[in-house]
């Protein structure tokens, strides 16, 4: 009843864990095969140690993070971690990061020959050749990187949009033009915090990424607007902590959702959301999520 389909791949339900917020460590708390899908931590060509200093700072209704894409590198992920992930009967999405166009392309090439189902391109990463501005800010730069990746990518390609894009609609449109098979949105919002005792920014990098319930209304608006102008599948992300949040995204036009920071509140929050959606559908006599997907766009 709750199942959805994207690129011919069946998801048991529309609930996927968001990149960087969920690992196998959660298997102590519930069977991960219950999930619609699992999205990996952002993978880069080489190992990354991540950022120094404070990495997490709680805010009202969410948190700022400055993890800095800490990951073992794509090769080690494929040899050491992926074999464990493959045990779960769920869709595995590899999230790919990079600091140059070539890095994205080479990382995706390595993932082509694995059992990963889908690739999600994280274009919120700083572009070292363009002075550190994220690939996901200017749509012409995003267009280039998505086009290059699309040429080599043998898996369905989802592009994960940054809400910090100059123009989210233009960005969504250009990514689809460049060949994106689907879009997921949003990544974290640029934010910061200042330690007033020490009179300096909390984070070594000054700017960090905001996530959690505080971003939901803005993220939802973006999903709603984007879903009106593109016709590829959309995954809604941002501040989902219960089944009502998830259904809002679906009614705004999302085919599936990702839950990120919510996992930190309660380790099996995704299970609650899945059950909540199912109960809602039963109560409201909804046979398939297709009946309500994008239903709010009529207004």
């Amino acid at each position: 009843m709750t199942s959805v389909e994207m690129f011919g791949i069946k998801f048991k339900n529309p609930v996927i864990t968001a990149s960087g917020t969920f690992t196998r460590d959660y298997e102590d708390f519930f069977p991960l095969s219950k999930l619609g899908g699992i999205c990996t931590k952002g993978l880069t060509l080489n190992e990354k140690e991540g950022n120094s200093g404070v990495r997490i700072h709680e805010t009202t209704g969410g948190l700022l993070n400055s993890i800095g894409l800490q990951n073992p590198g794509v090769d080690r992920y494929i040899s050491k971690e992926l074999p464990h992930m493959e045990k779960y009967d769920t869709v595995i999405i590899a999230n790919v990061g990079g600091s140059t166009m070539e890095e994205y392309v080479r990382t995706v090439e390595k993932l082509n020959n694995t059992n990963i189902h889908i690739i999600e391109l994280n274009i919120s990463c700083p572009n070292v050749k363009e002075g550190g501005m994220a690939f996901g800010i200017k749509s012409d730069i995003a267009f280039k990187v998505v086009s290059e990746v699309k040429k080599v990518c043998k898996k369905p390609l989802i592009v994960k949009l940054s809400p910090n894009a100059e123009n989210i609609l233009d960005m969504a449109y250009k990514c689809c033009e460049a060949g994106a098979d689907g879009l997921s949105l949003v990544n974290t919002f640029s934010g910061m915090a200042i330690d007033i005792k020490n009179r300096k920014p909390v984070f070594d990098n000054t700017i960090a990424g905001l996530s959690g319930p505080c971003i939901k209304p803005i993220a939802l608006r973006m999903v709603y607007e984007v879903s009106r102008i593109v016709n590829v599948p959309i995954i809604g992300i941002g501040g989902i902590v219960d089944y009502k949040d998830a259904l809002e995204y679906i009614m705004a036009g999302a085919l599936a959702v990702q839950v990120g920071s919510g996992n930190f509140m309660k380790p099996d929050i995704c299970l609650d959301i899945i059950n909540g959606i199912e109960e809602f559908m039963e109560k409201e006599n909804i046979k398939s999520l297709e009946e309500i997907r994008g239903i709010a766009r009529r207004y």
Partner: protein
Amino acid sequence: MKPKQCNGKVLSNIKILDNIYEMKLTGDFQGNPGQFYMLRSWDKEPFLSRPLSICNIEGNLLTFLYEVKGKGTDIFSKLREGNVLNLLGPLGTGFPLNNEGKIGVVAGGIGIAPMIYLCKSLKNDIDFYGGFREKPFYMDTIGKNVNKLYISTDSGKEGYNGFITDIFNPEEYSVVYTCGPMPMMSKVKNICEEKNVPLYISMEKRMACGVGACLGCSIKTTSGIRRVCKDGPVFRGEEIIFHD
């Protein structure tokens, strides 16, 4: 021992000094010294749960010793008998308990919290060094489980007037355990290294998930990047790099 979600019912929650509280919960708890729980007694705000070390477990009783620092611990301090908290744990890797010989324990301030359960669980002879700012607390409980008790206060109100590390000599210990402020632990590490005594350090870092997923609590160690919540909070002394 696998961590799980569970509820704890407040049996008592008392102020033992200024902003230091002791909270006893009833429920079904497990855990080793040095392990911790993520706690929340609220729904969606504050957003994150708060990590607290196991201070003691006896039967169905779990004790936390905590200092009120901000929003979360302030809410904890207002809990009354019968209130219910959501707990996630036991989490992390605790202290190794299989060392022979005499043991030194060095704790500073609220860092004594995990050391209480540690001292109760160790069969060895223990010398306890407790450093405090104003006044010592919980020393009666500690006193019952150790051979010798060394106390220092910055204020000079009790015990040695100065830092606990001034009077700490590890020479007769086969192993030393420490938990407390970073500058104190850094000094303990230097002293132990000088005398070639093995050391275990309990680290602290801000946490989001507490289970090893978010990488928010990563620290750089001599054995690579490690997560305080899963690979720690207890690390071998030689692994920790202090920036002072």
